[in-house]
């Protein structure tokens, strides 16, 4: 199997439209949550979200725009060459073109003709195709819609192809914009906190929704070294599982999530004691955070006592299809800089979440490897294993 490294990382977030701006704000303890302005939903009790200061363009959804912006940063001037059939694009999507469909439906309900071509041609795979055009990719393409674990699974799938020696380059990530269906949907489940969310807290009351995009460039190590690429970290493997427990709620003991983490460790041939960071799903819903902490204990055993855990939901809200990619980006930067970004507003930890969840302030520490978690409706669990790149 080929070793696979991350050689490009682009972030578009509610904190900043670039990687370093986002990361420095995270370490400084800032969040991107604010009053909801993207959507006009005055009757919704929660009026808060993590919004990216960009607008969709006439023939470009917000997701596509953010994805392309993140890709430009990830490329950082690199112009992929070689065999275009050995370049693959693997994207995770949550809602993607749904705002366009919502607008069309709204027009139709109001008796207007609407522009049917827009929902017809702006689907979930549109951003994937746009990214492929940008890098001239003629290899495999996949648009994964596993709800909130989509983009993390996309990264795992990309790693699989590169490790097998089938590709020379993969672009993988996800993008998510706010839309009425998800906002109203999570609200109808009473899962949205009207205040800023508080992952792992005793009084956590639900999630905030957010926007953002992350794109990674993944390459075989030998090619990355040959072209002198900057290396953010190494991808060692991933794990995926289903709970078979409930359509929306996680297994209360974290059984399926623990299996995904254990599978990632097995694939990456790593011992739990070598893992120093878990970039958690950490949605701040009452059901998720406790179950996830139990899952971390199940998967890591005694090593859970020394691992640092953090949730990017406290900075960005839940970016759904892009959430796993956001967590992976935070883990890669943590591995690079040997510092864990904080879980904001964690002043009163839930006793069930009895791990070091990095409350309030960033923490400098040795980080050799990190697990990134993303869980989804349908009891769908994904865990990605990353390692620090210390040189060849």
């Amino acid at each position, binding site marked *: 199997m080929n070793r696979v490294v991350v050689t490009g990382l682009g972030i578009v977030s509610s904190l900043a439209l670039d990687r370093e701006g986002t990361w420095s704000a995270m370490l400084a303890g800032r969040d991107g949550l604010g009053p909801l302005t993207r959507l006009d939903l005055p009757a919704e009790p929660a009026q808060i979200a993590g919004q990216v200061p960009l607008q969709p363009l006439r023939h470009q959804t917000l997701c596509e725009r953010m994805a392309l912006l993140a890709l430009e940063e990830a490329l950082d001037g690199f112009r992929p060459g070689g065999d275009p059939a050995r370049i693959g694009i693997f994207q995770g999507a949550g809602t993607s073109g749904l705002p366009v469909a919502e607008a069309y439906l709204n027009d139709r309900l109001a008796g207007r003709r609407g522009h049917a071509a827009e929902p017809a041609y702006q689907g979930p795979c549109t951003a994937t195709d746009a990214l492929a055009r940008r890098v001239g990719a003629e290899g495999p393409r*996949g648009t994964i819609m596993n709800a909130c674990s989509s983009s993390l699974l996309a990264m795992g799938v990309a790693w699989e192809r590169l490790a097998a020696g089938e590709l020379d380059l993969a672009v993988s990530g996800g993008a998510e914009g706010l839309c009425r269906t998800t906002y109203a949907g999570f609200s109808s489940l009473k899962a949205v906190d009207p205040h800023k969310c508080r992952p792992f807290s005793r009084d956590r009351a639900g999630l905030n929704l957010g926007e953002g995009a992350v794109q990674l460039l993944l390459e075989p190590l030998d090619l990355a070294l040959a072209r002198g690429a900057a290396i953010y970290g190494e991808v060692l493997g991933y794990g995926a599982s289903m709970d078979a427990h409930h359509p929306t709620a996680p297994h209360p003991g974290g059984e399926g999530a623990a299996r995904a983490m254990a599978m990632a460790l097995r694939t990456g041939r790593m011992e739990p004691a070598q893992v120093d960071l878990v970039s958690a799903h950490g949605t701040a819903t009452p059901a998720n955070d406790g179950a996830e902490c139990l899952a971390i204990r199940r998967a890591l055993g005694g090593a859970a006592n020394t691992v640092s855990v953090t949730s990017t939901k406290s900075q960005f809200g839940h970016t759904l299809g892009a959430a796993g990619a956001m967590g992976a980006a935070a883990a890669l930067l943590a591995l690079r800089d040997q510092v864990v970004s904080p879980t904001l507003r964690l002043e009163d930890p839930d006793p069930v979440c009895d791990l070091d969840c990095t409350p309030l302030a960033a923490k400098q520490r040795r980080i050799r490897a990190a697990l990134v978690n993303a869980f989804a409706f349908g009891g769908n669990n994904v865990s990605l294993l990353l390692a620090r790149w210390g040189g060849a």
Partner: protein
Amino acid sequence: MTLPADLVITGQGLVLPCGDGVEAARASLASRTPCFAELPETLGHGRGAACTAFDPTGIIPPMQLRRLDRASRFAWVAAHQAFRDAGLDPKAGTWGGGERIAVAVGTMSGGSEASEAFMRPYLLRGPEGASPLLFPNTVANAASGHLALAFGLKGPSATFVDRENAAFTALDQAARWLRAGLVDAALVLGTDGLFPLLMDVCGGARLLDRHGNPDVGSGRGFLPGEGAQAFLLETSSHAEARGARSRATLHTLADRSAPDTGREGRARALAQAAALALDGRCPTRWIGGGNGLARMDTQEARLAAAHPDWPAPHFPKALWGEFGGSGGQLLAAALLEPSDLTLVTAPASSGAQFAALLEGVRLESL
């Protein structure tokens, strides 16, 4: 991608507009009778291929049935048939409590039917119109979650979304999990349900044939369909060890894409995928994904012109409709007639173009 010849399909389950099950599909394919008719109002305005004879009685418990969108209902019944056809009880202890079975789904519209059902009352009445029961089905992977619950499946799961051939991306992923030894069996599905907004959008975008049944090569457009196709995939050694009979060997699966989505690039990509899949061999049967839309049909027309020695392609989407399984219909049709080497080409108006080569297609089942 080129697979070693060690993956076999041991089970098939079909929910199609022509009826449920393999025999109904075989009869439909043999008669070449299209399944299109005026749709009931609940599914939209216009003509399409609806699964009007679909009957989940005795398979999906009534309490669960109420909670499922159409795509998930179809998927459940197709999966039930596929497991039965393969002689495999997923809840038996030998399958690690379901941990050794993966699910890979391809869909064009998964979650969209529920999204429309959820949003219509919300847009009209505000938050009081929002149903928390409908919302979980608005995700594209709703079907895989329901299947996990129904059959106790706990292995990896992925749902791929694309316009016309997402089931092939799902097949590819399932093959990888099997090759990596992460699972012993993988359930591969294509599933889609019709809903009013889909008909409205496709009609408004002038994608639909307004003159009758779709005719591949006419360029008049397609007609939508619905349904699910499930395939149980295993390594040949695993199938042999448990005494399962193979319906076919998945000899190769290849994909290529074009940077732009224009016809030229996609036609070239499909030709490359077919060449990779065949590796110099001549197919004895050819199933194509043409649907009546010029930009889809052109790709296979060029392939046929370049290979006059190949058999004439069959186009199941001209019988059962587009989207109704996102390419799963093509695999289903490939397994319905015996053949030494069946080529399946699965063009798409976006994403990757796929070609698969099935070897030794047999009709016997357990």
